[in-house]
């Protein structure tokens, strides 16, 4: 039997429907948080790294939750497993890295001399002399770099920052992972009803985009780093593991990263062998890796998640670097891609709302 609803209740419903959206306040508060965070950039970077790590781990946590296990227990289980894995990495890879870094530290004076000698030899090649003068005169002057690296106060402050980050990041990650469903539910509670479905659409798209980008990037960088390590070891270049890690880390920055890592590897190889032949071999190796990455690894990992015009992509990276340094370069591309997608979703939402009366004409033709 059909019932007539309470008119007062319906008025309240309509009033709530037309209230000023609370998401405007949330947006303003978020803006305030971002501006404050910009002025405390270190905290923002730590939070961003924690967010990325938490995001990468969240899919594992979800898989454990599918078994009906409490989220807190799933997070604890992942932490214990990650701890055991880190011990494994510490046993297998860290000694190799320590050996390489010890070699670099011990041989620094020798490497400096070799570098200067190599640069002197390189002067014999056409145009090279002028370029080398500029490099030595600029930031890449080996003596200046080494003295800067060996500045003890700098080293201590860097070590303190690393230790600070090593404590804070796992702390932030733990709570981000454990409390995320509750945070999400609270955010959902604040969103007014007319915006719920659009907000879920935005959440869903961000989840899909960020998920495919970050997980794909992690796999892609590891693959590129491993290929570079093996290739450099086969070419007989010193410090292949360290260079592989540098290549993997630099690969995070589109376009510019692979060029930086290639230049570093070429320089190390040239200093070691003092021959243009090895530089060509290393450059060929990095070109091969880049081609493999572009045509095989990237389509299988990141796929088409980033749909930015190449020109906009480069502008984004430069703007990211200017605003937030290296982390800005790394995060600018996914951030702009996500922002672009969210804007499209909200524009579509606006169109759907304004086009409601037109759509209503067809509503009588549907069943429910």
């Amino acid at each position, binding site marked *: 039997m059909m019932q007539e609803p309470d008119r007062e209740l319906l008025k309240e419903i309509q009033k709530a429907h037309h209230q000023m959206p609370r998401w405007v306040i949330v947006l303003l508060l978020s803006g305030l948080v971002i501006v404050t965070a910009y002025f405390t950039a270190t905290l923002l970077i730590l939070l961003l790294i924690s967010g990325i790590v938490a995001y990468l781990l969240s899919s594992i946590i979800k898989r454990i939750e599918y078994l009906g296990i409490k989220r807190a227990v799933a997070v604890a289980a992942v932490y214990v497993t990650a701890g055991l894995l880190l011990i494994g990495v510490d046993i297998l890879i860290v000694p190799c890295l320590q050996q390489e870094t010890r070699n670099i530290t011990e041989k620094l004076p020798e490497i400096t001399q070799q570098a200067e000698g190599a640069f002197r030899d390189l002067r014999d090649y056409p145009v090279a002399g002028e370029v080398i003068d500029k490099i030595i005169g600029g930031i890449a002057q080996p003596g200046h770099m080494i003295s800067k690296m060996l500045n003890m106060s700098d080293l201590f402050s860097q070590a303190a920052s690393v230790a600070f980050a090593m404590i804070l990041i796992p702390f932030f990650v733990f709570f981000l992972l454990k409390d995320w469903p509750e945070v999400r539910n609270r955010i959902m509670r604040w969103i007014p009803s007319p915006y719920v479905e659009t907000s879920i659409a935005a959440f*869903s798209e961000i989840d899909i985009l960020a998920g495919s980008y970050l997980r794909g990037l992690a796999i892609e960088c590891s693959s590129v780093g491993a290929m570079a390590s093996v290739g450099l070891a086969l070419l007989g270049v010193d410090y292949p593991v360290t260079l592989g890690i540098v290549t993997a880390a630099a690969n995070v920055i589109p376009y510019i990263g692979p060029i930086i890592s290639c230049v570093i590897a070429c320089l190390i190889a040239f200093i070691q062998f003092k021959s243009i032949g090895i530089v060509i071999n290393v450059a060929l190796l990095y070109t091969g890796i880049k081609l493999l990455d572009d045509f095989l690894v990237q389509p299988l990992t990141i796929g088409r998640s980033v749909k930015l015009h190449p020109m906009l992509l480069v502008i984004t990276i430069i703007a990211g670097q200017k605003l937030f340094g290296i982390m800005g370069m790394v995060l600018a591309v996914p951030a702009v891609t996500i922002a672009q997608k969210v804007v499209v979703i909200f524009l579509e939402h606006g169109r759907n709302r304004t086009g409601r009366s037109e759509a209503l004409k067809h509503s009588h033709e549907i069943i429910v």
Partner: protein
Amino acid sequence: MIKLFGWALDKEKERRVAILQKVHLFKGLRRNLLMKLLVDLVEKEYEAGELIFSEGEIGKALYIILEGSVALTKKGKEAPLVLAELQAGSYFGELALIDQMPRFATASAQEKTILLIMYKSYFDDLIKGSAAISSRVLLNLVELLSVYVRKNHDART
């Protein structure tokens, strides 16, 4: 084994999975898949009288009532008509998963209500994930549609 690790199991999730098991759309799905649905779906709490969606809005999601009750009303010539009052374990807005047409009715919470919201892309992912799941869920959906068609036919004749 279950007794040994009983402390690690989430009792609230178990209770909610039992509610999902009653949803016709997910009839025949295994418990682990229902648990996956539960973890992935968005939860939202509505106060008594709060609007969930309005008639004529483009629908993009299915709603499952975990707690509370929901009234579905339709604009009438003089006053809105109450089409249905749904209790915990019921669901509404399922056609939004197939097309993105305007909502036929207005939904509002009658009391403090907790809803699980399945956005269309989650549903698309769900049916793309496995042939067995997609055939089961789509079969359930076709069953529902056939009921709607018959009801509509009966009402017209």
